[in-house]
């Protein structure tokens, strides 16, 4: 602005100060260095240097001390409060009868109908159990005894000790193409579960049964995986399962020709109990029936106790013809890890005979694809299969039983870890065996007490397995262990079935609340 007014630029402060003609303009303290060296000036400068170095030293020491010296942390810790939920009526959902697409005349291939009636056994540790069929079902079995049964117990009067309840069903089917023994325990409904089993290849029918025991409708979303990876198909999301009802869907309806499906079921609203039911027909020969129960969560340490191989020779004999239809009579382990990349899995197959440590092998599987690992030449006997993996996975074992041409198969799912006590009901059927696998490094003495009967102690060596024959249809309580996997198998004359023992429902476990 001064330019436009034609005035000389105003001197800035800097020029003024720098002008030696006006030394008095300088501030006394800043002027010191410019004056001739005097004793006072030297003293000021050295005092400043000393003070400065001391200051820098203090700063450096403080920072170094803060970085190097570990200091204690003081403060408060949150006080959580353990809330024991008020016991409620416990519910278990049984699978219901074996189903088939099309009726007994072979028509109506899109409708589902029931084959016979399962035998259901249930018991509760406090004695009161009620069993009611669901009200609606896609198989038109609502309110009949063929419908899935809901087993419930009233709330325990003692709030801290909820009752143990268990139930199991079995059904021997011999009708047309459906011949075989199917057994399953009754499990609690869940919002998130995995099913590993079944097939939609030619001659294999796999039905997905979703049963909602609750009082609110459930919205179910499915994720399907096969040997080629994830399967996208219409109709897998937003499946409404009515309250107290059953929906049945054919997996082949989503995609046919999957040899190794795995289904991930999630529900919102009500919770559902999801199951697969597989039936095999090889040519004109019925190949068996089985019900696959769900696994609630993936794990990096998966145990499948009680894999029963009834007669290796008979199975081998079936394969002699080289008919690819009989490829799936071989014992196999289905493994699926969600995600991407390669997952290293160590599989150990250990006979229940304690003296034999069995075999183990490591292989890499592709995550995101379902892998069936054939376990060839597995000799007749009972085995515990353990899978240790880098990533969480779901696994199950398929076993075929044969007597001559008559065959049946069973899917043994991985068992959940039992930590305190459990209850198991032996499904009505032949040759019912309880398999116990001890994952700990100490010997477990498991007390198996028949309800209203005698108790037996089974000694399970560390890392090994135990076996006990059960009375068909009887309920047993298991106690005296800290960690245990258990399952039940039924097998006789070309009929085989099995199910795992589930721990008491987690929904009622105490929870820590931070108010």
């Amino acid at each position, binding site marked *: 602005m001064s330019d436009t007014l034609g005035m000389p630029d105003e001197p800035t*402060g*800097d020029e003024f*100060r*720098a002008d030696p003609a006006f030394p008095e303009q300088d*501030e006394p*303290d*800043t002027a010191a260095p410019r004056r001739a060296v005097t004793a006072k000036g030297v003293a000021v400068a050295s005092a*400043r240097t000393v*003070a*400065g*170095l001391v*200051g*820098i030293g203090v*700063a450096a020491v*403080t*920072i170094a001390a*803060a*970085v190097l010296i570990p*200091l*204690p*942390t*003081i*403060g*408060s*810790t*949150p*006080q*959580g*409060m353990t*809330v*024991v*939920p*008020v*016991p*409620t*009526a*416990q519910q278990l959902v049984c699978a219901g009868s074996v189903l088939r697409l099309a009726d007994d005349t072979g028509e109506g291939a899109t409708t589902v109908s029931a084959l016979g009636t399962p035998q259901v056994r249930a018991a509760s540790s406090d004695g009161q159990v009620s069993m009611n069929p669901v009200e609606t079902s896609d198989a038109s079995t609502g309110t009949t005894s063929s419908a899935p049964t809901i087993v419930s117990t009233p*709330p325990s009067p003692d709030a801290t000790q909820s009752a143990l309840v268990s139930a199991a069903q079995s059904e021997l089917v011999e009708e047309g193409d459906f011949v075989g023994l199917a057994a399953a325990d009754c499990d609690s*409904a*869940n*919002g998130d579960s995995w099913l590993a089993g079944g097939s939609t290849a030619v001659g294999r029918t796999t039905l997905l049964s979703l049963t909602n025991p*609750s009082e*609110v409708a459930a919205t179910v979303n499915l994720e399907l995986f096969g040997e080629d990876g994830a399967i996208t198909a219409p109709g897998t999301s937003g499946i409404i399962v009515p309250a107290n009802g059953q929906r049945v869907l054919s997996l082949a309806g989503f995609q046919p020709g999957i040899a190794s499906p795995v289904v991930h079921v999630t*529900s*919102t*609203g*009500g*919770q559902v109990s999801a199951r697969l039911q597989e039936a095999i027909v090889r040519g004109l020969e019925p190949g068996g029936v089985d019900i696959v129960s769900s696994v609630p*969560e993936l794990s990096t340490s998966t145990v499948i106790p009680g894999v029963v191989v009834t007669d290796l020779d008979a199975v081998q004999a079936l394969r002699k013809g080289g008919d690819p239809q009989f490829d799936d009579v071989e014992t196999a382990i289905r493994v699926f890890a969600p995600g991407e990349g390669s997952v290293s899995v160590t599989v150990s197959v250990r006979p229940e005979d304690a003296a034999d440590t069995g075999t183990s092998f490591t292989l890499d599987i592709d995550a995101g694809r379902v892998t069936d690992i054939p376990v060839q030449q597995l000799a007749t006997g009972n085995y515990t299969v353990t899978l240790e993996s880098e990533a969480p996975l779901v696994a199950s074992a398929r076993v075929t039983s044969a007597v001559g041409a008559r065959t049946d198969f069973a899917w043994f799912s991985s068992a959940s870890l039992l930590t305190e006590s459990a209850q198991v009901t032996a499904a009505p059927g032949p040759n019912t065996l309880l398999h116990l696998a001890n994952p700990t490094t100490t010997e477990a003495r498991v007390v198996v007490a028949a309800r209203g009967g005698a108790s037996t102690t089974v000694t399970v060596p560390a890392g090994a397995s135990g076996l006990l024959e059960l009375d068909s249809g009887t309920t047993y309580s298991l106690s005296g262990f800290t960690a245990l996997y258990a399952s039940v198998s039924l097998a006789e004359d070309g009929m085989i079935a099995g199910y795992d023992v589930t721990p008491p*429902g*987690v*929904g*009622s*476990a*105490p*929870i*820590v*609340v*931070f*108010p």
Partner: protein
Amino acid sequence: MQPRVLAVLVARNGAQYLPRTLAALAAQTRRPDSVVLVDASSSDDSGAILGAAAPGNVVTTPGRRPFGAAVAYALQVGPPQSVDNEWLWLLGHDNAPDPSALSAMLGAVEVAPSVAIAGPKLMRWDDPALIASFGETITSFGRSVDLVSGELDQAQHDLHSDLLAVAAGGMLVRRSVWAALGGFDPGLPSVDAALDFAIRARLAGHRVVGVPSARVTSAGPPELFGRRSVSAGAQNRVRRAAQLHRRLVYAPPIAVPLHWLTLVPLGILRSLVQLVAKRPGFVGGELAAAIGAAFDGSVPRARRTLRRNRVMGWAAIGALRITAGELRERRSGERAAAAASGAAARDRPGFFAGGGAWMVLVAAILGIVGFGHFQSAAALTGGGLVPLSATVGELWSHVGYTWHDVGTGFLGASDPFSYVVALLGTLTFWSPSFSVVLLYLVALPLSALTAWWCAARFSQRAWAPAVAALAWALAPPFLAALGDGHPGAVIAHILLPTLVLTVVNAARSWSMAGIGAVVFAVVAASAPVLVPALVIALLGWAAANPRGIARIIGIPIPAAVLFAPLAFEQFSRGTPLALLAEPGLALRAATPAVHELVVASPAAGLDGWTVFLAAIGLPAAAAPVVVIVLLAPLGILALLSPLLPGALRGIPAMVLGLLGFVTAVACLHLQVTITGSTASSIWPGSALSLYWLGLVGAMAISLEGMRKAAAIPALVAAVFLAVLAIPPLVASSTGAIAVQASNGRLLPAFASAKAAADPSLGTLEISAQPGGGIAVTVHRGAGTTLDEQTTLAATDVAVSPEDERLAVLAGNMASRSGFDVAAELDALHLAFVVVPHTADADELTRQRLLDALDGNRILTPIGDTTTGTLWHYEGLGDGSAPTGPGPLGTTTGIVVISVQGLVVLLALLLAVPTTRRRRVRSARVTDEAEEVAE
């Protein structure tokens, strides 16, 4: 008939004056006929000096008596009146008369028989050329005024002889009049005693004259008689007390009750005025004088004395009162004299010429780059930010001691920060939440402005303030506070330079002390963790400025009063450290390592460089090197400050920085805030702001010390610090920060809409915690706003019965349970359940929670919302939310609000800038007074 003169010389502790006074008395051309020397209980050797001068004529008063009473005592024990025409010559120990003084006065009274009182011209003891006092008068309101004071005697006042009153020292009074009027009023021990006596004499029909040719010395005003010094406050109290006494005495009977009733209210009003006038020391005196006057037992007797002797109306002295016009003229003259004596202003860089405006402009542009996209937002959420209450009334209902709708609700002290939030929200009263948006938009330029102002106070050249302003606006802890949503830390950062500026200036100015106290209170409320460091710094500054100690020490008072209720509750709970908790929404944040604090990074991630380098494809391992290089100019310049000229300023700056660093380290080790299942340490950002303040201050002082050589280092430092701020600014501008624009809703729209009709409607928030377990809280109405947050709840670890009730409800809702959830929801008036999306929650627990709520027949799932998964309890029955009184609903609440309001109001009154006044100085004996004035 020749008049007879009795001189009465009263001495109290006047040994240093007596020899000269006695000599002057002896040297009178017209010597008094008799002399009485009164020793009014001196503690020095005045008595001995008097005794040596006239052994027979010394009277010693029993006990300390005021001047007038000492004279009365002397007359009582001394010789009785012998002749009619006898005069009393009243002298104090400092009243050394000129040799001709008595003869001049006698000359004046002899020619005018109506004159009963004559007063000499009082000259300064130390400088006889200056008039100390010559005549007194009163204003129309009765305030006493010295007609002449401190003027050089050029005979300019020698024309006026008829006066309303004269000073007591050197007063010549007719003894009969003295006796008739009863001497000086005992109710007026020093000030106005002579004035009152003269007024009474005037009303009794006598005249009062000043005799300019009679010169007598005086060492000080009457209140100083016998004392070494009187503080300004005490002086004001004595004067005010005398004025009130006279008012009650002079008032017509009918007006006395009115005057009496207005005494205390007027006292309070005048106290406030004194505060505004920057004289807080006068406040106590004003109140004491008012209360003293209200219980002044000497008034009735004084009124009787006045009535008995009064023969003329008050109109008789009306002409002698000072008029309003004359008073104004005198005042303007005083102001002009004071202004002329003021120190010349220092040479400082101007805001526009010195680059301040440019730096603010640059900061404003960077602010728009970083946060401009928020300009259309109604509110901000994310990090520690939640919207504010919807109305100003609600905002102010959360201050003081009030009911808190947090959890199950409780009655307790609010955080002082709630005042700050309420004030902030009131700025945009039409939409309080928008004030936070506004704060974000102006944060950078505002911080540049405060930093520039502060730095300019210590600079003569433009470089240092400019670089300091940029460094302060782009400070890593500041940008982190903005990005992570720490409103308290943002406000504290903006105000810290102002605090430094006002505290430094408070050493010399009451107004600055007032502003400093208010700023300190706001900073302390916004970032309580800074309080210990700031108090230490204040004490240091007070120790360095003993003259300003009263002003500096008072600065934390408003903050202390604001924190007092909260401190009481925290102390009685046994958790005093919880007072340091950051106010606002409690957050779970990753704590930085100590070496990250050294580079002023309040959160893990080296001021955002780790993420930034990874994003642009460089190895993250380079981040420490980059940050150290970018901070190097600042660090080196800061460390140089004690070595360069100006070290005396550089060292305090370094100490401030060190205090900030130590506080930041302490923050990491103080886990006082509870969020769900974890205890979080205090966010160290505010402490790092203090650390940064020290560093930037030291850098600015170094740059100032380098004088002309400062340009290059200043440029390098500015460019490096600007580059350092790139990652956080980029993150803000791309929205990659926790704070996001929001529609101002705290809860899902459905719940908000329902709550609009019923503000007490509750929403139960259950969240799965990282280590398993669930946390539960309750939001009432539209949600828990920023102003509703309370550290009292956030730092509470105890489980109360109400907490337990809520926990049982939540625990059962998260389970398959036979608990009667509906009845409890009814009882607590809860209509919604929300499970927020939390990244760190334990998945299994969260799934269990969702499953249980989904499977609950009485809850209708609404679905996923932006806030979380929502369920509606449609069958809400009768029940009422627990509620409690507001800020004014309890006695405690009213006391808290009034005391806090009063203290802040007083600080604000003190802070109001008023015209430059003469510095109030204690009255001292004159020779010392000059010394003090230098």
